[in-house]
């Protein structure tokens, strides 16, 4: 079984070959190296992983397509998929990095200010919307130069995590 693991911030997916040996044991190959791994899944997204005697307590947190992996204090965000899902995901990726950009609320909060209107030309890094959470104001900036084509944010309204705010095209 081959999985493709793409680390956040990296362009290329790294293939990991997995062979289940039963009893929570696996043969895993990555970057040309093969490991015998004893990986016991515990509750609450915890895993005890033994690799050549090294003990790793691993914590997983799923967030959309990505899974955050905490190992010895380091968090690595990985998008992991098999071939079929990888293709599916490529097809449904509506907002690519180059095309139009959807700006969503990075946390639940309240829209305290909308700094643009539909049709505005914006520069990369220009402030679009200010969202307040936990007594702190956070200005959301445009990830690219372009034009505001859609505006969902309304001043004074509460927004959930990941709520659509602005589209810049």
């Amino acid at each position: 079984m081959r999985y493709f693991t793409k680390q956040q911030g990296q362009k290329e997916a790294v293939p990991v070959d997995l062979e289940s040996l039963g009893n929570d044991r696996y043969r895993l190959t990555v970057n040309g190296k093969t490991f015998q791994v004893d990986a016991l899944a515990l509750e609450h997204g915890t895993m005890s992983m033994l690799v050549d005697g090294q003990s790793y307590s691993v914590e997983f947190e799923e967030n959309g397509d990505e899974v955050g992996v905490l190992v010895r204090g380091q968090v690595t965000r990985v998008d992991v998929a098999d071939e079929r899902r990888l293709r599916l995901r490529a097809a449904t990726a509506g907002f690519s990095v180059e095309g139009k950009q959807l700006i969503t609320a990075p946390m639940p909060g309240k829209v305290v200010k909308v700094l643009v209107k539909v049709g505005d030309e914006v520069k990369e890094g220009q402030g679009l919307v200010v969202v307040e959470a936990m007594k702190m104001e956070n200005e959301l900036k445009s990830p690219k130069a372009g034009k505001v084509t859609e505006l969902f944010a309304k001043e004074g309204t509460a927004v959930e995590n990941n709520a659509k705010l602005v589209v810049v095209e």
Partner: protein
Amino acid sequence: MPKIRKVLVANRGEIAIRVMRTCKELGISTVAVYSEADRSALHVRTADQAYFVGPPPSRESYLVQERILEVAKKSGADAIHPGYGFLSENASFVRACEKAGITFIGPPASAMDAMGEKTRARANMIKAGVPVVPGSTEPFATEGEARDYAQKIGFPIMLKAAGGGGGKGMRRVESLQEFESAWRSAKSEALNAFGNDAVYIEKYLEKPHHVEIQVFADQYGNTIHLNERECSAQRRHQKVVEETPSPILTPELRAKMGEVAVKAAKAVNYVGAGTVEFLVDVHRNFYFLEMNTRLQVEHPVTEWVTGLDLVALQIRAAEGEKLPLLEAPTPNGHSIEVRVYAEDPSRNFMPSPGKITYLRVPGGPNVRDDSGVFPGFTVPNFYDPMISKLSVWAPTRAEAIARAQRALSEYVVKGITTNIRYLKALLAHPEFVGGDYDTSFLTRNHDALMGVEDPRLSEVALLASAVYAYNRDQKRAKTLPSAQGSGAGTGGVSPWRQALRNRR
């Protein structure tokens, strides 16, 4: 004054629980108040009684004096502990408590008045002979007067626009030669920015440390200090790590600052727990900054090295007991506190409210966790992002740092993002380890504190993620028994749902 039997804690989160813990140990009943956003909060369950006080925004609930007093009467509370923030430094609330015949566990309103407003506090301190950052309180009429004053207090100095803030019209002047041109540009910038070219002068402090002195007074004028806390690890004036003793204080400086802090407290007839904040410059001169007329967030480090329970002392002082000690105990060992915030350092410290799905707190020797949360709790959007304070004790500073690192490595919070990894990087930074870190430490080292990736651990993470994905797929296959046979024909719709649809 009679013994306090029931305390209303007019606060939420970790500090409400902190206060209730001591009350419980003293056999005092507790009353919680909660806003709509806090119905499920831990402080509601920790108290013996709990009452609703309004909608989520604190100005409509925790800050509404009448509601709090109404609950105090209804519940039969004879005292109110304000915690920190909210109503804790509100003199009018202290007067309202007095009027209602309820003991306010804190200083008298007059002391709050005297210390509440910065310029008034500064004037009061000057009168009392407490050193403040040298500077003119009034703008200057002529450049000549200004230059004379600058020479008197000594360079470097800061020129500051009287009319405004935000860095506009501010100029740092290193020497007499630079003075004239700086004076002119500061004045014109001030005029442009605020329509007012008045400029005043303050001494520029090089690499200042934020060092504060804990003071304590009873109702009979006995006032002592309980040593210092070093709080220079700040981000946007928000403290992140605190420790005691301060690595830069000598016993002599400690004694001197303690003496001055006591003088400041006595000048305003202080009662109870208070903190006198100082800036200490590179030459180890110290200057009054402000006085916090309440319990500080970082009081646990003082408790660790003195063995005192400051909340218990506050209650005893409010009951009219005399101070049980007459001078500062010599600090025993070293203590460090780190603040665990629901925030994402990698996204400019954006707050990260949300549901805590899993929580494991550190244990073992000399570790203290003051938490306000629990697994399953949704950290609300309306209040401070601090979810816990972790503090440790050890005989020496080096051991305390190692212990704090160990404890942080045991801390697991899932569901929301926290600054735990940032705290680990902070404690490992050579400047922090060295001990002489000033208030610009965190800003200056922002990038280094974001941490570097260990490629070996990233590889382990990739391996782990593959097993995770495999387990996930296996589990899905199991929940959908028929999917294994029929393949992907249902187009991603679970056969269970499919079955349900067919029945409808």
